[in-house]
């Protein structure tokens, strides 16, 4: 098993914005090793979200390759990408994106259901994780009945309950106050340190950057600074 | 926030219905897909209802015109007793005088005098009962199409010439040029006897007529059956079938007391009833279509009000009255209707105008059925104000109601809650 989880080589991505081409990423080379906690930073339009999306298989590069866990994403079909996301990755979104018609417990079970995990095991894993995250008493509530912090914790639970190789979080703290942001970051740090989950976040929240072990700064589609010193 | 909000005037006093309508119109295009789908439903309903109604009107008009000009005429004049009993002796006396008087009336185009008798008709070997119809050939041709249906031979001219139904001819085993003997009873009990030559065969497609009809010049029949200047029926063609009820009334005031004037719908009650039953079936269809489309409009406005709750909260917050907002929604409903009605009515009118000259061929299978209903094989849709107005107006009412029901929820909206809602 290779030590490298993500390898981006010469990745370029250009968008059409009202017929004006906008370069989001320009020949980016980027490697993430197993067990890292990386934050991608930079101002809006720097390309950090684009890079995160390319790593997550949500978007495709115009040129260059993206490899996740030894698999080159460029060669995969939409369905194969779906399966890769389902089995290898966990996502935490800025706006939680829990399914409004399902309870917290059901939301956490949801991806396991997609994976075809047996009902008993699903219930067991979801319950124990919710308990670990302090949401045991909220398990039966629907997202509309939870606070922002609780929703985001449930969303993290949904993302990690399947033991993904890679946890991707796009602006996870954008809708949270500083108290709940801190709780969330403690949770991510614990996951990273205790269970060795590889985490990549895109953020411009200094608090998030502070918790990560490696900070990569982007500007105008290029990596301008890669501070992996704190990883040591 | 939305474009519509930017349109809001700063001062309530400058608020006007026009402004409201303008915002309604702009709001309409915020969700184009929904507008097209809703207006599409309205267009579908109006197109279908308008076109079917035009076809129905065209069909009914054709049936009535066809049926009345076949034999019966638009209006009939008969002795009251003859209508009740159909007995030979109940005739109209001094018929030529009455006919002349009635012909002088402005709406009357032509009057065909007729004598009707049942008699035994024999060829060399066979005998059958026939209905003898004594006619004035020129008047008959000006009144109805009966003589056009002679498809072999010619019209009877001399007193010893007759035209007979196609099936009767076959039953009697005679053709054009054959000789027939007619035996019947005179008005006052004597024997009416005639020898005639067959000069034509008539085939109407109506079994009753083809099996039993025998046409002869009226004078010959009057002579043989002992009638003077008497007829059983005056069949009348008038200028326009639409005026037949009024003309019937007018005629009724000019005839003696023992004579009855009947409009076509009394002479052919089955026809009007068939039309009524058909109209009823059509009404059920129109009703269901309109209800279904109205449901879809209700749904559109439920969704619309739900989605704009936050925006409505904002409008309330800045001081707009709930009914002002309801008004905005109603204007929007009006425009949804307007777009749908314009498209539906536009297409319907284009189709109707397109078919007005060529007509719509109903197919071979329909032709046999059509004949039974006095329908031509080709139908021409007809415009009337009813066709043009009924379906659009009902749907206008429907869309306004459909929008009003969900819109009334706005009255119960609390600005703060609404602003917080998603």
């Amino acid at each position, binding site marked *: 098993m290779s030590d490298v989880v993500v390898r981006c080589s010469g990745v370029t991505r250009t968008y059409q914005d009202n017929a004006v081409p906008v370069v989001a990423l320009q020949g980016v080379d980027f490697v993430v090793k197993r067990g890292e906690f990386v934050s991608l930073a930079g101002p809006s339009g720097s390309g950090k979200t684009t890079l995160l999306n390319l790593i997550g298989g949500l978007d495709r590069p115009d040129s260059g390759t993206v490899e996740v866990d030894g698999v080159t994403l460029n060669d995969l079909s939409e369905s194969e990408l779906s399966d890769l996301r389902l089995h290898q990755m966990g996502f935490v979104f800025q706006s939680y994106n829990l399914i409004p018609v399902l309870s917290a417990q059901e939301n956490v079970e949801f991806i396991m259901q997609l994976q075809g995990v047996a009902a008993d095991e699903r219930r067991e894993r979801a319950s124990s994780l919710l308990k670990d995250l302090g949401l045991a008493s909220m398990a039966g509530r629907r997202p509309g009945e939870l606070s922002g912090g609780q929703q985001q914790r449930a969303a993290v639970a949904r993302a990690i309950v399947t033991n993904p190789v890679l946890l991707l979080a796009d602006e996870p703290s954008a809708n949270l106050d500083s108290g709940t942001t801190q709780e969330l970051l403690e949770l991510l740090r614990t996951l990273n340190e205790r269970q060795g989950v590889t985490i990549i976040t895109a953020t411009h929240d200094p608090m998030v950057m502070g918790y990560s072990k490696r900070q990569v700064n982007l500007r105008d589609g290029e990596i301008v600074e890669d501070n992996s010193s704190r990883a040591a | 926030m939305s474009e519509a909000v930017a349109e809001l005037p700063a001062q309530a006093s400058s608020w006007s219905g026009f402004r409201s309508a303008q915002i309604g119109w702009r709001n309409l295009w915020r969700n184009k897909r929904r507008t097209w789908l809703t207006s599409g439903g309205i267009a579908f309903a109006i197109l279908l209802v308008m076109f079917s109604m035009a076809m129905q009107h065209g069909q009914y008009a054709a049936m009535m015109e066809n049926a009345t000009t076949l034999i019966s005429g638009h209006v009939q004049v008969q002795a009251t007793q003859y209508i009740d009993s159909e007995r030979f002796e109940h005739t109209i006396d001094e018929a030529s005088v009455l006919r002349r008087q009635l012909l002088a009336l402005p709406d009357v185009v032509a009057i065909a005098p007729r004598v009707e008798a049942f008699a035994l008709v024999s060829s060399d070997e066979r005998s059958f009962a026939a209905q003898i119809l004594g006619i004035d050939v020129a008047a008959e041709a000006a009144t109805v199409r009966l003589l056009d249906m002679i498809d072999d031979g010619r019209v009877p001219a001399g007193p010893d010439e007759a035209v007979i139904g196609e099936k009767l001819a076959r039953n009697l085993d005679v053709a054009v040029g054959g000789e027939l003997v007619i035996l019947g*009873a005179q008005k006052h009990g004597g024997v009416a006897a005639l020898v005639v030559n067959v000069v034509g065969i008539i085939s109407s497609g109506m079994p009753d007529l083809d099996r039993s009809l025998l046409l002869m010049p009226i004078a010959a029949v009057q002579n043989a059956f002992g009638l003077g200047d008497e007829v059983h029926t005056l069949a009348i063609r008038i200028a326009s079938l639409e005026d037949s009820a009024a003309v019937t009334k007018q005629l009724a005031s000019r005839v003696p007391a023992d004579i009855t004037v009947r409009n076509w719908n009394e002479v052919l009650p089955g026809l009007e*009833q068939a039309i009524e039953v058909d109209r009823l079936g059509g009404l059920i269809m129109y009703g269901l279509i309109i209800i279904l*489309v109205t449901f879809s409009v209700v749904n559109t406005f439920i969704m619309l009000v739900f989605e704009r709750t936050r925006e409505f909260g904002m409008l309330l917050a800045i001081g707009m009255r709930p009914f002002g907002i309801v008004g905005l929604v109603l204007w929007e409903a009006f425009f949804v209707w307007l777009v749908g009605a314009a498209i539906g009515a536009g297409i319907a009118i284009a189709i109707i105008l397109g078919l007005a000259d060529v007509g719509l061929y109903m197919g071979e299978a329909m032709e046999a059925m059509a004949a039974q209903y006095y329908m031509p094989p080709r139908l021409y849709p007809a415009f009337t104000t009813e066709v043009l107005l009924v379906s659009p107006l009902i749907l206008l009412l429907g869309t306004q109601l459909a929008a009003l029901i969900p819109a009334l929820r706005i009255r119960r909206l609390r600005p703060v809650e609404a602003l917080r809602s998603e």
Partner: protein
Amino acid sequence: MPLKLLLQLSQRNLFRHRRRNIMLLLAICVAVAGVTVMNSLIRGFQYDMQEAAVANLTGHVKILAPGYLDDPNIEKSFALAHDWQPDLPADQLEGWAARIRIPAVIMSERETRGIQFVGIDPAQEHISFIGNATYTGERLASAADRRVVIGKELARQLETAVGRRLVLITQGLDGLNREAGFRIAGTYDAEGTGLEKQFVFTGITALQAMLDADVVTEVSIKFASHPKEFSIKQVFVEFFTGLDVLDWQELEPQAAAMFVFADAAVFIWFLIMMGALIFGLVNTLVTAVMERVQEFGMLRAVGMRPGAVIAQVVLESTLIMAVGIAIGLLLGWGFYLWLQDGIDLSQWAEGVELAGMRSLLVPRLLVEDMVLVAGLSLVFGILAALYPAWRAVKIKPLEALRR
């Protein structure tokens, strides 16, 4: 993708927007119930008209001498063995009747008319209208009855009554006219003047005696099963060599054309109702997709396959359709039960007679029609979901992250 999960999501989403989905459900119910009731009325009309055509001395199959239809005449007749029986299992046969039917002149003291003179065996005529008509006076007692029964309307026109005498003139087998007096046993009421003016009945052996001819002009056969299903005509074609064997469609082409037209009308109705419904259905489904852009994006981001997204939308449509169809069919069935005694059209009696109908329209609900409506409506539900499903699949997972 577990179906159970999809079902759970669909069902919860439907309940989430209760008001609009109830409206949609109502619309589906109205459409399905409307189609069901109209179908039952159209079928009622169709079968009534067909039965009337068959009962009109036609039968499902009729055997005639060649040339009789062109020239109905006693010369166009055939001999029938007295012990002849149709060679059919009893359960396939409702009955059969041998008749003489010839044109004749009828005269009362006052009036003369042309009619169809029909010699019948009353015991066999339960298959035709005359066996089931209501009578004033008496019916014919047997095949040997020397009296006549005439229509109510004909009696009025001839100004005669039960018990009086009539003279009938018709052509014998030798080509010469026979004239005979008959006493009126009774008058029949055939619900409409068309038949009453046309047919005069007497015992068949009495008529044979009058004509000096031991023959019949027609044998009419009625089957027990529905006429669509029989292929038994061939049995008679083989048995009656040299004679014409015609089925009711050939004998009553107008009724047969109407029958086919009614089949088509059922479909036209269905299509119109579904057409009116589909706009609202698509509209609601698209909205349900568009307000869940983020949710669908997230589902795709976390690894739900495109096919599963399509399945999800189609399933929602199918689910609400299925419930609407079930309630709609029940409603339609309820209406049908309510109308089961028939709709009285007698105020338009002469109009409906033009269409070959009786004045009581009894609806007829066919199980196969209900199954067809249910099946086709589901297909429509799936078709209506295709565009919204395509919209849902087009949603990029990115869109879930953007907000």
